[in-house]
């Protein structure tokens, strides 16, 4: 009995950790992966300089791909000895000064650079690279990984990019620049002089959107438990992460590690059989199909699976179809409609008045006075809304504005215009209001009827 409880807790912990912290497993993208690996290998072994952009939508696995390639290469002793990896993130290194400082630290050259005065950015960078050359004949190569590459393009004069690409072009020192971005038009952001120095090597990562079967098997893989042998293989693979010397790469620190886990063979078999059964049910297939239609990325599926796995408990030891469909339904529903259903009847009435105004005047903007006029016409003939004071209606109107269901036309216009007369626009569709009216609990019939037709 307690064994099984323990097994469940362990399963839950294991699955959660694998979903959350497996930063190095890439599925698919074989050719892209080889491409990047060869590039890095050539930099490390032959001392070639290169630059490459990795482009793909959010959650496609760009960073994971680089991590995986690095993990592969770290097994190689000569790679470890010959290369330095510098990691920069556009969100963290918001200007070139910070970036350069960080580069110095990551190359472990603080001491060498200490007290030196550099005339220019290029000089400084050249000095850093020069330091690596000193000593033996063959100089160390440096791999620069630039996450959120598009943000580096906004830096003043794009100095960092210019210098990095310049070095990689002119064969001063072997460096490889790997840019990672989700903007497809990133090349257009580069200045002309920077663009001409870039190698124009681009690798596009798009999650394959045409095979639902793959998606289902990925889901199955994410929730299944591995056998002890597979577990061991995974552990061996990430052993090389120990070789990482960089402080900026943090994924190796709390990377998912299977060492602590050993599952009872029977439990694993039992569990996996259950999962297989679950996936075969039509309801599960339907939910997965819906998720697949929303978003094909692996990151999205992982978040979903994480929430699913989190529901495992001692008294609910298996993932059930009901849990799966219930969670899927949460993704399907519209957040705004949910919020609309939490409004008071008065606030919903105002939204209906706004809807009528918009449909009559072809989405013209409106102010409080207009809406109040329309609302009071309804209030006069209705039994529920009679005697609601103007001040309360104004408060309700302001509440709608706070939750951004209606938005002021100009954000700067505040102060000059009285709030009753400030123009707003609606941030909802008619369909959403309609849905909310249908789903609202205990809505007075006359309000529902008014929502249908503006004639009172």
């Amino acid at each position: 009995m307690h064994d099984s409880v323990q097994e469940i807790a362990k399963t839950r912990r294991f699955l959660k950790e694998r979903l959350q912290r497996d930063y190095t497993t890439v599925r698919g993208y074989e050719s892209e992966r080889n491409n990047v690996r060869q590039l890095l290998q050539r930099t490390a072994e032959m001392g070639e300089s290169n630059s490459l952009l990795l482009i793909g939508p959010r959650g496609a696995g760009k960073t994971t791909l680089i991590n995986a390639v690095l993990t592969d290469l770290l097994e190689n002793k000569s790679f470890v000895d010959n290369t330095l990896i510098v990691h920069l993130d556009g969100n963290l290194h918001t200007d070139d000064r910070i970036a350069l400082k960080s580069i110095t630290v990551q190359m472990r050259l603080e001491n060498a650079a200490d007290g030196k005065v550099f005339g220019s950015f290029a000089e400084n960078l050249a000095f850093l690279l020069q330091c690596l050359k000193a000593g033996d004949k063959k100089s160390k190569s440096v791999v620069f990984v630039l996450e959120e590459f598009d943000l580096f393009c906004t830096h003043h004069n794009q100095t960092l990019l210019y210098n990095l690409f310049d070095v990689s072009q002119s064969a001063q020192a072997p460096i490889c620049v790997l840019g990672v971005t989700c903007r497809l038009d990133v090349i257009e952001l580069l200045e002309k002089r920077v663009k001409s120095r870039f190698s124009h090597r681009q690798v596009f990562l798009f999650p394959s959107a045409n095979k639902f079967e793959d998606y289902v098997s990925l889901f199955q893989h994410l929730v299944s438990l591995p056998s002890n042998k597979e577990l061991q293989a995974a552990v061996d693979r990430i052993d090389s992460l120990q070789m990482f010397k960089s402080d900026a790469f943090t994924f190796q620190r709390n990377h998912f590690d299977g060492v602590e886990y050993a599952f009872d063979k029977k439990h694993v078999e039992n569990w996996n059989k259950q999962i297989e059964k679950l996936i075969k049910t039509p309801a599960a297939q339907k939910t997965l199909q819906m998720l697949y239609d929303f978003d094909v990325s692996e990151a999205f599926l992982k978040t979903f699976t994480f929430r699913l796995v989190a529901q495992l408990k001692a008294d609910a030891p298996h993932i059930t179809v009901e849990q799966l469909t219930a969670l899927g339904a949460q993704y399907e529903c519209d957040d705004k409609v949910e919020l609309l259903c939490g409004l008071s009847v008065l606030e919903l009435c105002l939204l209906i008045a706004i809807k009528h105004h918009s449909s009559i005047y072809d989405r013209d903007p409106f102010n409080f006075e207009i809406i109040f006029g329309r609302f009071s016409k309804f209030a006069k003939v209705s039994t529920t809304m009679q005697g609601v004071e103007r001040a309360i209606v104004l408060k309700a109107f302001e509440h709608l504005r706070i939750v951004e269901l209606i938005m002021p036309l100009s954000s700067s216009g505040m102060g000059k215009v009285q709030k009753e007369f400030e123009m707003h626009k609606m941030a909802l569709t008619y369909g959403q209001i309609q849905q909310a009216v249908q789903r609202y609990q205990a809505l007075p019939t006359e309000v529902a009827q008014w929502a249908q037709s503006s004639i009172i």
Partner: protein
Amino acid sequence: MHPLNLARNAGSWPQLIKSKQMENICAALEPQFPCRESAITTLAELIGDCNEAYPPAIYIYGHSGTGKTSLSKAFLLQCQQQQKVRTAQLNAIECYTTKILLENVLDSLSQENSEQQLAAESLRADNMLEFVEQLRRWHGSKVRGFLIAVDNAERLRDMDANVLPVLLRLQQLTGLNLCVLLLSQLPFEKYYNKTGLSEIISLHLAQYNKTETLRILSSDFDQMRRQMLQQMKEDQLHLAEQALTPDFYSNYLNLFLSVFYKACRDVPELQLTARKCFAIYLQPVLDGSVECTDVSRLWRHIAGPLRAALTQIYMRIDKPLGEPAVEDQSVRKLAQSLELPYYGKFLLIAAFLASHNSAKQDKRLFVKHHGKQRKRMQTVNARAKNVDKMSTTLGPKSFSIDRLLAIFYAILDEKVGLTCNLLSQISTLVHLKLLSFVSGEQNIMDGSAKLQCTVGLDFVVHIGKVVGFNVRQYLCDFM
């Protein structure tokens, strides 16, 4: 299980004890937050156990008064007490720069080890990189988890562009077992920017429905009863003790909600007002004039005060109980009580007319022999009444002082000199905020200053009645 037993068994089933952590938190929180069981369970599943991997970020949204802040605060406190997790809670409104936000987070997270270094030097983070590096330094410490809750998260959108993306990916960037909770009233789609954001788990705290609201409000009963009985005089005590039953209170709440629920669903606000009005409800029972079971007569007593209280909701006007809760704030009273001089009233009317009529119409409105107007189809169509496009609903336009004075002389029957006394009344009206400057406040003398009338139609109509002037007659909207 007996605690001693639990302790003895802890060695043999360490996993089992750990798996109980979630349940402990749930058990501690559920009595505190009625009708929030499912949200508590979901939170506990996600971040209830610091030995498991936290998700990178959770977005909790719902209307104000649904318990976002208090629930997460209590949850984090439980985590901190039971599992020694480091927590930080902050309000984005208080953090008007990124630096303040980051240093606040660091300060709260570092609380434990700052005991050695003392609070003398609080941690500094000038930019995002230093913040992340400081967090990375805590890697390898004994702490199993970090939780950061940011209230009013919609404010993060107005901060530096990198704040929100970094917070959402903080776990990956720092390599710590760390989770960021964002609390807000908006749906998450309002946060999307040009390049998108990483995945977040969103959790909706639905507004309480009527039954749940009743349940929460009636949990006040014991406290209310105690409070009421304390205030009673000797002779009423017996009567009050008899009357104050849960049934009596829930009857009251039903009546109360029948008035308030349509306009306001904010539970804390309802709670506040319900407490305030209860004494009025109880009054006739204490007098002995109404039986405590006679709901319909009690309703007749309370209906008026409740409706009056409805107009004051959200205002938090603190008044001693028992007094008539509200004073009549109607526009009529306000207009009649305004002590303006005679010419001042006409100036105000003139300003209103100037604000709400176009200058083109002035000749037609105020000049005796304005000539014959040609009737053309175009003008007829243009004049077709359109309530929503009336200038009284679209708001006041600006006018110059010259125009104001011209209209003033046109609507005033008697002749007055243009004296400084008259002109000073304009500035009085501006001081009273009945008029406001739109532009050219500095250039009043050269006539380029533009003014605007800030009062509404009702108000001016009442003022007009006082001086015997029909305002509507002179408004283009009503012609």
